[in-house]
């Protein structure tokens, strides 16, 4: 079996919280990510789902090298990403791109679309102007836009169109992995379907992989092959997306499914048995971090941290119930 394209191995990220005017004395740590493991293969979509404070944005930043892990390794094509320098680092950067949530902040207001999309090409390649222009037209067509919009400025486009431009930009350099951080949450409902469908088509056509971060389970399940559920910095369950929705094992995943809104008024849903608020990452609960809200917590959950176990092929849970 070949090595997976992206491998996240027991990664931890702690942010220092300091006090002091000149030199920050580290008095506490925000344990944003606490030992996560996952892999992404080529042409695969991994969905990352969780609520505020779960660490999914931090995970994205770690993969994009905006932050360095406090512990653990991230490997791309088998190489440790943290150790990359020079041309190897540039190779990584051209293979891994991102699309953010806010379509209005993602595009530089003073640059034309052509220049926005061509920027990664300018950084990584020595293509001539005309070759770049051609590539820009190519990717614009890939995302379903007419090539002649390349001369316009971002403010002339709607939110959905801007996200397409952002996706086009992310694809410009034969990208292999795109990190999508809530790419459709800020868009209208009817536009969301356009973008999701477009992304799925692009994956089939180009073989690009996605790390899809979202909070709407239905959307994430639709586009993802596998889903990892995060809570307070840890992955509590990961499985194939259809299986996760059909038979969720972890109480938190079950709660997310109950909380997910019905598709039809007749679809009966039980009431949410979850209580309380999400704890702060500054002082996470001991043992299993979910035990303070878990309807099925046992005494063991307060003391022992559950270890992620494979309970079925491709289905892993971190819970003392299993």
């Amino acid at each position: 079996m070949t090595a997976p394209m992206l491998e996240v191995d027991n990664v931890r990220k702690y942010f220092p919280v300091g006090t002091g005017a000149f030199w920050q004395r580290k008095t506490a740590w925000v344990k944003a990510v606490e030992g996560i493991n996952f892999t992404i293969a080529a042409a695969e979509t991994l969905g990352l789902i969780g609520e505020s404070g779960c660490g999914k944005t931090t995970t994205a930043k770690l993969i994009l090298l905006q932050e360095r892990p406090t512990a653990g390794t991230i490997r791309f094509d088998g190489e440790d990403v943290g150790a990359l320098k020079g041309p190897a680092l540039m190779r990584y950067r051209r293979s891994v791109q991102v699309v953010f949530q806010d379509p209005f902040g993602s595009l530089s207001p003073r640059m034309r679309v052509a220049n926005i999309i061509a920027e990664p090409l300018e950084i990584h390649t020595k293509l001539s102007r005309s070759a770049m222009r051609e590539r820009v037209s190519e990717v614009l067509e890939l995302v379903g836009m007419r090539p002649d919009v390349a001369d316009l400025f971002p403010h002339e486009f709607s939110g959905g169109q801007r996200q397409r431009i952002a996706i086009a930009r992310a694809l410009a350099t034969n990208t292999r992995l795109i990190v999508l951080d809530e790419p459709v949450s800020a868009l209208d409902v009817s536009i969301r379907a356009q973008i999701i469908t477009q992304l799925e088509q692009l994956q089939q056509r180009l073989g690009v992989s996605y790390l899809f971060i979202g909070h709407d389970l239905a959307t994430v399940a639709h586009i993802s092959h596998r889903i990892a559920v995060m809570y307070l910095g840890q992955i509590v369950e990961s499985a194939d997306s259809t299986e996760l929705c059909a038979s969720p094992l972890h109480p938190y995943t079950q709660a997310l499914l109950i909380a997910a809104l019905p598709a039809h008024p007749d679809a009966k849903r039980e009431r949410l048995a979850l209580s309380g608020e999400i704890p702060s990452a500054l002082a996470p609960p001991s043992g299993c971090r979910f035990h303070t809200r878990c309807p099925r917590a046992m005494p063991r959950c307060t003391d022992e941290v559950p270890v992620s176990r494979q309970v079925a092929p491709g289905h892993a849970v971190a819970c003392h119930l299993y």
Partner: protein
Amino acid sequence: MSITTTPRVIEVHRPSQVRRWVGDLPLLPLIILVPFILAAVFADFIAPYDPTEPVRGAKIFEPPFWMEGGSTATLLGTDFQGRDSLSRLIFGARVSLIVGLMGTVVAGGLGTAFGILSGYLGGWVDQAIMRLTDAWLALPALVFAIFLAAVVGPSMWNIVIILGLVYWTRYARVIRGEVLSLREREYVQLAEIAGASSLRVILRHILPNVLNTAMVLASLTIGVVIIAEASLSFLGVGVPPPEPAWGLMLSEARSTLMAGKWWLTVFPGACILLVVLATQLLGDWLRIRLDPQQRNL
């Protein structure tokens, strides 16, 4: 289902950008400034006499032409050496505007550069530049300028550089603040993630977006620089005589004001007033113009 979208170019009722700009020009500042600018540019052709030589055939202290004793040959009168006031005012416009403009460019350029470096690079670079700015601000501007002028010797370009060195700090502070917020914008982050070098990010993304603020700041402070130049010439350490400068004219005429030779102080003073007023109004207009447009984007 085909999902090819056509861009909905938001025409609304907006005519092209250029036409919108032209339609809303601020009349008052331009009415004031354009004649001065024209005078400065075409001084050689407009001025009736050589500003540094006494007018042949005219008396000294001749009053303006509408007063008794004045003549139409010297419209605004003559000074203590018999030089034509009008010509001196016209040539003086050249000095004031050039020094004002160039001084602002130097100050703005230095300040913006420091502000960007400080805001974007952060860390000890930021701390160092900020402490430098603090120290510099502690120096009283004019006194510092006089000191520098005395050290390097007065000449027009020296004054330009001196004024630039004195006034850069106000830009640095403001631009740094703007850069700090720009740095967090997603399109900047995107460029960094794509592998852009710091230089590229600064030139391509940060600089164009701070230029607006820099321009507004510049137009608001050009008045300060002009007055500073006038003050320096007034004190005798500005552009050296006989090159005419409005501040110098004020200085020379100071003693004669009480003797009733009012035209030698009122006209230069009025010129300074009008130009500074016009630039302030222009700066205000620019500020309002450029801000909501940014927000519309």
